[in-house]
């Protein structure tokens, strides 16, 4: 469902991502892990058609991210810690606006909003509030609802728990497993290893723009004697 081959991104002399290759299958949660500045966000932004790769190629839901960007966007949802929704719109207006791009309106839209609200545990009354009047956790839920409203085959979550309190974080992690259970493809990018231990099936370690390790969660845990953080550090020491 996601195929990246030799994907790279350079800004003049600086190489943000260097020849990254990986595949993610339907029903799988792939953890893209690494410290800040490792190239995770750049990789995801290339998959999301927000950045043009300077090397390699990638396909999302069977579509090329450069040549078929509109089709990629139809089949993709993205949640990024830095992306916001319109502060002055109500939750319902936000979802109504974005639903229009996916042939969702009328009864179909209402049905889909009810589905997303139930999945994310959003109370109906909250949807009538302006986003600026919601808690940060609830705002993030609206961001996620917007990303999954069209039930995309592929969902990219980039530092999605940033700024969330313990309850909202728990709800998000539960949602990730639930959504993968529907046969969807997820990439979960984070620098918080404990989150990845909880939700990922396979993991890739990124550092300085390179994918330095890839394997199942169990293999990665074994590498770190049961600890993903230790596995990451050990792998970096090996390739140094």
């Amino acid at each position, binding site marked *: 469902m996601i195929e990246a081959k030799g994907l790279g991104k350079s800004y003049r002399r600086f190489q943000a991502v260097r020849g990254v290759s990986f595949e993610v299958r339907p029903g799988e949660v792939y953890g893209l892990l690494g410290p800040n500045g490792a190239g995770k966000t750049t990789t995801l932004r290339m998959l999301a058609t927000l950045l043009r790769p300077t090397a390699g190629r990638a396909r999302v839901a069977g579509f090329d991210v450069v040549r078929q960007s509109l089709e990629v966007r139809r089949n993709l949802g993205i949640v*990024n810690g*830095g*992306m916001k929704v319109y502060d*002055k719109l109500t939750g319902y*207006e936000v979802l109504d606006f974005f639903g229009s791009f*996916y042939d969702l309106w009328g009864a179909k839209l209402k049905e889909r909003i009810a589905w997303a609200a139930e999945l994310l545990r959003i109370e109906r009354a909250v949807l009538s509030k302006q986003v600026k009047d919601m808690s940060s956790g609830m705002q993030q839920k609206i961001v996620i609802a917007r990303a999954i409203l069209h039930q995309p085959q592929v969902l990219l979550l980039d530092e999605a728990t940033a700024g969330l309190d313990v309850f909202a974080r728990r709800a998000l992690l539960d949602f990730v497993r639930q959504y993968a259970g529907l046969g969807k493809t997820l990439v979960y990018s984070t620098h918080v290893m404990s989150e990845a231990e909880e939700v990922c099936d396979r993991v890739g370690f990124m550092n300085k723009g390179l994918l330095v390790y890839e394997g199942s969660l169990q293999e990665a845990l074994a590498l770190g004697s049961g600890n993903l953080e230790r596995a990451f550090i050990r792998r970096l020491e090996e390739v140094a």
Partner: protein
Amino acid sequence: MLERYLRPMWAFVFRDWHLTRRYMSWVAVFVFYAIVNSATIALIGKAQDDFRLTLTLLLGVLLWSFLSAMYNEIANSISYERWEGTLEYTFMAPASRFIHLAGVSLFAVMYSVVRTIVILVGLVLFIQVPVNGANLLGVLVVLLVGSLAFMGLGLMAAILPVMSPENGAQATNIFQGVLLLVSGIYYPVSVLPSWVQPLAYLSPATYALEACRKLMGINHPDSTPDRLVGAPLSSVLPELGILLLMGLVLIPLGLWVFHAAEVWAKRTGRLKRTG
């Protein structure tokens, strides 16, 4: 099938409507300022007891109010998204850039029409000039045709905030200021320095004003303060033709330039930054 294109376009119109009504206090403040500013300019003509000057100034403030509001709405649509932090997600929406910008432009036209009507009503409180005999329907036609060219200019100016998050919004204002200066909104183009005058011919506002002045009969020798001698629409066909041609060139050009700027922003990572 058509609904698939119209729905996303209307989505942008409704989004902008909801955002505008939530910022209604700001809208009210700016419209109040526009009314006072327009009245201040138009009263200069009344002080001179010159109906031709008064009408020239009135027409200038209203036409500029309409065209500049439309230009601003389109040109600043990207800046607004940057301030809200929503630009990336809007660009992620699976709608073609044509549908996106058509929706933004449609709202801009509707908003500008309503805003100009409110300003006109406000102006009546300060100044009343009979317009008997003026070809007001013709003026409306010129405004509609002139809108196309201004939409194209707005689309081209909208790329500035895409290219430079820090300085793009300011640059759109400079561009707007140049248009105001060279188009002869409140004065004949002939009073401009000779090196500036050629620029007037590049501005659609110059032709729109020229046509509207004829249709209103402002400079007709037989016009009096009680009865204007407005020209028929057929007499401004050359201006209408130029405006239409400008619209037909500037809108596709604006879309193309916007597309090129978007590709460039995705290549250089400029979409991410907020400002």
